[in-house]
């Protein structure tokens, strides 16, 4: 018996829009059932940081680097909101969908490959980060932060940074053998990066080696870019910072695809 006649060259390739759209539609439809909880955790936590540090330390430290301390923290916690709405959901969400819900098995049985799956998931989380990341600015405005045209660039910065952090989270989920291992990543990687991002205090008073290491911290560049967008861009150094975030995002994207391919295709 002959094998079924091979079709004409199919119009199917890599990173196709229908595949990306399909995964995004799934996320959007699902989001309608859990958006309250997601929005709450991703915005309230950074806002609490803003209020606690801004008004707590703000009563002791009035200005930092010429900025009102509340303004300093309001711009800094944008990066925190980006991290909380991208890296954390990516880690836990990816692991749950892979290991417990087996959602990815269902998606990969359709004409979607791992590269498209990871890309769409990261894009979705980046989109959310670009919205949630702006919440601290809105809260800051309520408490006296002066609106500026540069704020319009912040969602874009949050999107690029959120994409990288989402891919980071997906990669962690892809390489982890157990969800318990996430504790190591949170304690040993994310918390130090979060504390040394320049969100709550400027890094120029820190030892030189800390300042040097902070140049490798994408969260630090996010903080600085947002701050500069709000208070005034710093020229070519901002381009370098933005370039760093793009490189971080691209590198993490490839790592995440590799990790998930190993996990999902045996």
């Amino acid at each position, binding site marked *: *018996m*002959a*094998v*079924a*006649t*091979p*079709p*004409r060259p*199919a*119009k*199917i390739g890599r990173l196709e829009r*229908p*595949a990306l*759209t*399909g*995964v995004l*539609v*799934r996320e959007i*439809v*699902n989001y309608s*059932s*859990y958006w309250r909880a997601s929005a709450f955790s991703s915005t309230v936590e950074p806002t609490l940081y803003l209020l606690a540090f801004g008004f707590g330390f703000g009563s002791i430290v009035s200005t930092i680097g010429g900025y009102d301390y509340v303004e300093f923290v309001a711009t800094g916690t944008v990066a925190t909101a980006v991290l909380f709405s991208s890296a954390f959901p990516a880690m836990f969400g990816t692991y749950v969908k892979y290991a417990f*819900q*087996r*959602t990815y*098995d*269902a*998606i*990969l*049985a*359709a*004409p*979607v*490959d791992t590269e498209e799956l990871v890309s769409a998931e990261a894009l979705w989380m980046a989109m959310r980060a670009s919205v949630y990341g702006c919440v601290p600015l809105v809260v800051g405005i309520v408490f006296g932060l002066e609106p500026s045209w540069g704020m319009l660039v912040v969602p874009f910065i949050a999107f690029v940074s959120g994409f990288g952090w989402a891919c980071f989270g997906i990669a962690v989920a892809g390489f982890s053998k157990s969800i318990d291992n996430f504790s190591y990543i949170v304690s040993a990687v994310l918390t130090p990066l979060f504390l040394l991002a320049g969100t709550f205090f400027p890094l120029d008073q820190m030892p030189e080696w800390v300042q040097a290491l902070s140049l490798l911290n994408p969260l630090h560049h996010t903080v600085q870019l947002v701050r500069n967008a709000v208070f005034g861009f710093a020229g070519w150094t901002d381009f370098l910072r933005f370039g760093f975030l793009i490189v971080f995002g691209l590198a993490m994207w490839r790592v995440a695809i590799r990790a998930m391919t190993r996990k*999902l*295709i*045996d």
Partner: protein
Amino acid sequence: MTSDETRNRDRAAGVVAGVDTPAVNGDLAIRLRGVVKRYDEITAVAGLDLDVPTGTCVGLLGPNGAGKSTTMRTLTGQSIADEGEVEVLGFRLPEESKQARAQLGVAPQLDNLDVTLTVEQNLLVFSHLYRIVRHERHAAIERALEMAKLVDRRATRVDKLSGGMRRRLLIARALVHRPRLVLLDEPTVGLDPQVRQELWALIDALRAEGTTILMSTHYIEEAQRLADSVVIMSHGKAVAKGPPAELVAEHAGREAIEVYGAPAKLAEVEASARAEGFRTRRTGTSVSVLGIEGADGRAPDEGERRAANLEDVFVLLTGEQID
């Protein structure tokens, strides 16, 4: 299937955007040759040859661990064979697995529905994933709902559905894009007999439409009832292939006699039957003497006569009991 039906089917399948639909002319929908899949020290599939002609329902029968699910994963490109050739709908895997998956529907053994979504939302998501064009999407979802008899449940969240309804939804999800080939991995495992009957009716309707089906199961009755042809797998290999009736006739004859009794008596019956040249198989409480038709006088004179069945074949060929 008539040529008109075939044309209608192809046209309907054409709702999948950007995917060509080759002609269906009694060709092979699945062709595996010498497929081997290893996981470290374990060989899950050990040189499997498998042909699934288009328009037929083939049952992959075997106990747990026989390699059925690994074979299914290989056909969707989620498991890459270490050796051998895999062709699905004319596409070579793993290179062209995405093209094959566009025309393939999969109902997995483990429920992976989005439980917080409604029935209709689950189908909507997969109508996008399977690239059904916008103006055909609504009709495709309606058709899948009707086929799975879930029209009245369209707005029900999946976590409020019964086990049987969830399984029907899994099958509906696999059919939403009118695939040319459907893979059903243990479609009725864990369901009560009544729900199983409902699902059998659904699968039967698919067969009647001419959809090619590869169904893995470890239920003998399921394979015997639904499959045009059965492949019995054991330890990653196909140990017998053919229509159920032919397999039974070839390996177990037409009739069997089943003798119950104490272990000593069963051993005695077994020994004397073998001495007469009969094939026998043991179950927990009985021994079956096979191929007794036309053997009056030589066959045991006590016990219950019954028709030989696929389970006799399976146990004879593999030495394993199955459900």
